[in-house]
């Protein structure tokens, strides 16, 4: 009985870890997209400034 409960708790912990990893990846992707945006902005500025 105890073992079963331990394993269920362990599964929940693993699910949470998996969720956190997914969220981490989402944050990192968002950061990457924002950096892309900044990059595009720089291009826009260059065009605007005739460089």
């Amino acid at each position, binding site marked *: 009985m105890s073992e079963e409960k331990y394993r269920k708790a362990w599964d929940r912990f693993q699910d949470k*870890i*998996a969720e956190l*990893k997914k969220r*981490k990846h989402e944050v990192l992707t968002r950061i990457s997209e*924002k*950096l892309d945006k900044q*990059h595009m902005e720089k291009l826009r500025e260059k065009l605007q400034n005739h460089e």
Partner: protein
Amino acid sequence: MNKFEPTAEDIKKPEAQENLESLKGVENPEELRKQMMSKAEKETDQFKKECADDLVQIEARAEKDGLVVDGVDKEELQTLNNEVITAKEELFQEIAAEKFLLSESKTSPDFSKSLEAEISAIKSIEELQSYIKNIGSITAADGYVYKEKELAELISGVSDGKLDVRYITRAYGLRDKVYELISTKELDEPIKEQLHEATNEASKENGSENFSEILVGSDIEKVLDQCQSPEARQKAIDLSTILATHIDADPKEISAMVHVLEKVDFNLNSAEEFNSEFLANVLIGVEENVNGISFDSSIDSALKNTLKIFEKQQGVYYHGTNAAAWEDITKSGEIKGENRGFEDDLDEINKIVEGAGFAGNTEFLGWYKINSSDKIFVSGKCDGVNGVNQYAKNSPEWLNVMTNGAFSRRDYDEARKIVSEKISQWQNRSQEILDAGRRNISEAEADTIMQTFEKYWNKYGNADPIVLKITNQEEKVMPVYGLAREVALYLKVNGKNVDYNPEDLLPEENEQFIKENMAPAELRKVIIQFLNYKRSQIDERVSNKSISIKDVVHFALPK
């Protein structure tokens, strides 16, 4: 481009299974428990290390290209760090709590559960008094037996304000119930009336009387009625919001919007993704309808439609909030005050949670400190999940975080249960956690948290979500200049070397440049590029000082 390649694998389910496999051979429960704790410790440390490594990698790349990593995103990575520690703590608590659970099973769990459920369903102090009279007595966790008369006097004392609620035993959820019954009040109706008046005034200032009610009007209701599932309905609400916030407050435009919406079958999966291409085509459809010209018939007609779309989108942002916050806005005349009124209460809770050494205070209170600063988060996009509609439903974000999302569903019972469970967890921490220097929170601290939850549920629980469209946030240029810039960018991105500055040229020269280089189909792609750019402007933080209330139109959202 700055494509990110994470140092760690994405979702680590396979490894999780591997760990479970490796634990299968362990027969002694105590040994199993120890191994789980050891593995959890290692996984937590590894996750924290990966977060730190990824951040170092990103910052190095950003620095190399002269770019800046958003501070909010960096903080979110830190939150994930905190959450993994919390997950580990919870695991430790669960597997350490086994002894307690076993000893408790000697009592009668069925009886406890039924008593708890009956008390939970009670709706008034009178009903509770009558119930206590029927059951005769209640036995507290420490074995003390509260007789009917004593309990009745205590409940009356608390109800009359003569006694603190802590005089009531927590057994079977009784204290929570008494607290709920004495603190739940109806929302102040006059506030709603004032809000309605203020809303109308704001609409008049924008020359758009009743425009803010368009999404809850009968035309949109007809569209929503065609939806056969909650998912389809949500899609229809999302797209309606996108269109309403993209058009002007003009009967012709509203009619065109409804016409376009009627043509979309939200019960099909095809329209589920409101990507830039889909949105561009829908917006073009509205313009074709308003202007009575087909986009693809000639470059002149494509240009005319495109310029209209550009004109409407210049300097436009969106923000999701709630009706109670909107009422504050209309009263103060500021889009957001520097102090929203909840800061002191939340600082107090933060102090309690941090003082007890709980690592996930951000998880409990969300980003309230950032949200209460003088900046607001605005979005350049307005679509479904993670868009402003979602922001609006979750607003105030900290209350939604505190209740694990139950607030967004305005589910009071579930929200209260979640907060109670969190509090209970912090009051009954495992010995290992206590040995590690953390402490349980006190009864008084638990009450402070619960009272704060009740206080703000009272304010926000009936506050409907609303979307704000904020205009004039960029210096306006003639649409033809803006479009010519986008065309130049499109050409450059597609490998054509363009030495071109639209501001050196007259409007007609810019128009000529566009016509010479673009076909209608390509202009569609330029609109998509522009909308992609707009949609990438998410989570921008704009100083509230720069936003005038006159530049804000609000939209009530359908339920």
